[in-house]
């Protein structure tokens, strides 16, 4: 076969590609492979997987569309991109639900299979959009029957029609790999590792992948390849990491460096389950994973593990955290160190289980009975989970307290390059357990005081099995010092204030709030959690336009960094973008008496940078 047309290569700074199709079409796999390949090619990458809550919605319907977006760049990037440069749509439903995000002039690759009467009706099209001349005017459209092309590529390998058709995601991948001049090698290695035991399936996937690649190379109409150069990341060895994986590795790291066994008590829930799955793979790190009978057992078993003296963790999402509420109160009053992870998702109730939201901040801060303060820390990106969770463990141990750790579905399932650290450069957490009391038969000899406090107001972590330190803890109010049950009114008030002062005192042991940009000006954008990337990008663009805008991203939400009040006061206005109805903004107003401006979207998806930029410009101008 001769080359149909002369090909040429165009250099780009960055590009955004989205694969979308039916939830059985293997779009998440295609996206993950393209991400890994781009990361290995040296690009900075950011991803956004978006899948339905149903395992298998009826085929071909809008409810069943699954998508995976990858933004890859030769520069530092912080978001998976607002608009798409190249869209692969595997069926009509995928096209109708995703086309609006393709930028004018973008590349549209359509699998024409299923664009029949039934398929179009299922998607809600009245006519065939592929016959609309406007489509060709607006986008660079490439139509092909991928199903048929894949079948002929795997012909002769003895596959059933169903098996052959399942390879079509590899055809789509091959085509996009050609388009962006990507190496097939990482995916070939993946196929070998994943399907090595089923050689005919492995061979078929390889054949489909290569067929897609050669299709781009040979078929008329494909005359441009796009090249995105390596990104200039700080030197080091990198790998691509998803948020939940980085979180799990951070936990394993903390446990190892503090010489503790790691206990995870968890009940499966989207999007937190992958933490349980990942940790279950690392038992040889002395990791005990306990799949509890429910969320309440998950948190209370974790309290038992904390009492045992080990690194105790529970991980869930909003509805599960709601069930854990009473247990968290017990963890607070028993003053045991543990980590409570909430991978937030759309609420209320079951809400949008597979979509992102950051609406559990108030739940984390106040969602328990009684005066029940807990430190709250939030991760800002997939790779930040690794560092932030280790910080959570440090605080838990140093202050003898459960610590709330917030991430969200966007961080949990998104991925980005992670610079592999030297183990020697990581912070070790020193865990102290009190020694046995000196041997004495003396009646008046000092007794062990389980609620004696150190300079940080932390009580001693005495572990069962240690002679002479026998003590009883529990949910009834404690006499400060002795830990005996006490109904004394003055003691109760004293303990309420002591527990609050202990948590407030954490501010003395955390860094001051940093600011990206000048430390005074017209507008300070204050963000927390997943919107970090969108806010950083929008603020950088505003700064490039000459606006006096800076950005403060909060990792510590309770207590706040000790310089935060002063920092907020140095800006004329404060803007707080959140994927909720204004939870941090409400706390900032209450704490600091400032007129913080809310900017809220609650649509189950991350912020678009251009929308944020518009809001920033509007705030500065008014």
């Amino acid at each position: 076969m001769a080359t149909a047309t002369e090909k040429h290569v165009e250099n780009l700074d960055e590009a955004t590609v989205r694969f979308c199709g039916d939830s059985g079409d293997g779009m998440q796999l295609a996206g993950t492979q393209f991400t890994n390949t781009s990361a290995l090619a040296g690009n900075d990458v950011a991803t956004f997987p978006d899948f339905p809550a149903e395992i298998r919605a009826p085929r071909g319907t809008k409810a069943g569309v699954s998508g995976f977006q990858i933004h890859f760049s030769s520069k530092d990037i912080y978001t998976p991109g607002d608009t798409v440069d190249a869209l692969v749509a595997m069926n009509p439903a995928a096209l109708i639900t995703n086309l609006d995000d393709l930028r004018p002039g973008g590349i549209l690759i359509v699998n024409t299979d299923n664009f029949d009467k039934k398929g179009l009706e299922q998607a809600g099209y009245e006519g065939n959009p592929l016959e609309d001349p406007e489509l060709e005017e607006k986008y660079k459209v490439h139509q092909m029957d991928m199903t048929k092309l894949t079948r002929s590529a795997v012909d002769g390998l003895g596959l059933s029609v169903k098996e052959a058709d399942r390879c079509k995601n590899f055809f789509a991948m091959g085509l996009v790999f050609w388009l962006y001049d990507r190496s097939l090698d990482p995916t070939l290695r993946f196929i070998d590792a994943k399907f090595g035991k089923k050689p005919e399936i492995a061979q078929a996937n390889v054949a489909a992948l290569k067929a897609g690649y050669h299709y781009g190379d040979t078929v008329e109409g494909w005359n441009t390849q796009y090249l995105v150069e390596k990104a200039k990341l700080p030197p080091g060895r990198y790998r691509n990491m998803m948020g939940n994986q980085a979180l799990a590795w951070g936990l394993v790291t903390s446990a190892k460096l503090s010489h503790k066994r790691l206990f995870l008590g968890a009940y499966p829930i989207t999007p937190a389950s992958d933490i349980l799955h990942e940790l279950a793979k690392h038992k040889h790190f002395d990791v005990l994973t306990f799949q509890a009978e429910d969320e309440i057992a998950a948190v209370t078993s974790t309290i038992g593990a904390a009492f045992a003296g080990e690194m105790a963790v529970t991980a869930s999402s909003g509805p599960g955290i709601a069930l854990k509420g009473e247990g968290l109160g017990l963890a607070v009053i028993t003053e045991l160190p543990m980590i409570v992870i909430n991978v937030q998702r759309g609420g209320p109730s079951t809400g949008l289980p597979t979509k992102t939201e950051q609406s559990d901040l108030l739940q984390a801060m106040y969602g328990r009975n009684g005066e029940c303060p807990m430190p709250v820390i939030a991760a800002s990106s997939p790779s930040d989970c690794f560092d932030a969770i280790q910080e959570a463990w440090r605080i838990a141990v140093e202050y003898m307290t459960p610590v709330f750790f917030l991430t969200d579905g966007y961080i949990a399932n998104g991925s980005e390059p992670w610079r592999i650290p030297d183990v020697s450069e990581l912070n070790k957490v020193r865990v102290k357990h009190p020694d046995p009391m000196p041997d004495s038969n003396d009646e008046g000899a000092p007794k062990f005081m389980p609620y004696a406090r150190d300079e940080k107001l932390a009580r001693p972590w005495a572990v069962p099995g240690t002679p002479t330190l026998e003590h009883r803890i529990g949910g009834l109010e404690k006499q400060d010092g002795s830990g005996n049950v006490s109904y004394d009114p003055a003691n109760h008030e004293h303990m309420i204030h002591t527990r609050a002062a202990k948590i407030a005192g954490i501010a003395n042991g955390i860094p001051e709030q940093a600011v990206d940009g000048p430390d005074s000006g017209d507008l300070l954008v204050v963000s927390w959690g997943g919107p970090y990337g969108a806010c950083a990008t929008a603020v950088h663009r505003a700064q490039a336009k000459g606006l006096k805008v800076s950005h403060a991203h909060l990792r510590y939400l309770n207590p706040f960094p000790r310089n935060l009040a002063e920092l907020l006061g140095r800006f004329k206005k404060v803007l707080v973008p959140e994927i909720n109805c204004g939870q941090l903004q409400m706390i900032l107003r209450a704490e600091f008496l400032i007129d913080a401006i809310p900017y809220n979207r609650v649509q189950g998806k991350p912020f678009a940078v251009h929308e944020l930029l518009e809001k920033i410009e509007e705030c500065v101008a008014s």
Partner: protein
Amino acid sequence: MPLPVLTPNDFASDQDVRWCPGCGDYSILAQMKKVMPTLGLPREKIVFISGIGCSSRFPYYMNTYGMHSIHGRAPAVATGLKTCRPDLQVWVITGDGDGLSIGGNHLMHAIRRNMDLNIVLFNNRIYGLTKGQYSPTSPAGKKTKSTPMGSIDNPLHPLSIAIGAEATFVARSIDTNIKHLAETLKRAADHRGTAFVEVYQNCNVFNDGAWSYAKDRNTKAETTLELEHGKPLIFGKDRDKGVRLNGLEPEVVALGGGIAEDDLLFHDERSPEPSLAYLLSRMRYEDGFPEPIGVFRAVEKPKYDDMINDQIEEATKMHGIGDLEKLYNAGETWEVE
């Protein structure tokens, strides 16, 4: 160094015991303190975990490690503790409300996992701490503050629940039968796996006399039956009655007149098949049966706390001791100059 010889008093904490005068809990506490020194364990290796309710104040009165946790969740707290620390002996103290109502789920799962816990359920058939509402073990028709026209709930039977959840050790005793109670607690402590003990316990304030038929010295020989492994089911003041099987139904028969001991049901606590233990758990005084006390079932099965730790050992054998550098660098990585 030999272990110091401990006495029951060594297991008394310095806290005032605050149960109502005459409460059956005092007797259970006393027997527990008596059993403790016989276990060959130092105090620091023993932990008592409880939920909420009168019985759940128990850990405060034991000079061991302990936790008074939250409603119904003691088995789950104990599970986390025992999983991490198989070297500790962990007791769960619960009541009929705590264990079977709000904590029924955790009780069932602790039992089916066969975690090495000793669970003692104080059954007084009433909510004591909340002042007298009916409990999951209250008989149907029970009139209480929350059921002025009588309870319309069918009661649960703790041992039937435990056996249904495949408990490996199941026993019953009575607060005032102190010798039997102490022996039963000792047997529970010695069992490897979940030991579940129901104790008939009197609440003299809100449900006085709930078990009078089983406790009264004049009637107890007729209304209870002491189980002994390998022995026939015989009861009665003159040991002249027994229980035999008629098909799948138990029936009470008088010995003599053609019915010999060999015709009776023989107790086999080690039977791998739990059906007979279940049948015993369903024999009720109100249906004309003596209620068995003693060990219904005692079989050996793998324990969760062993198995979860064995998996760690196995994984370590397969992959070596976890190495962070190796973890970080495995798989696809790339260098940036």
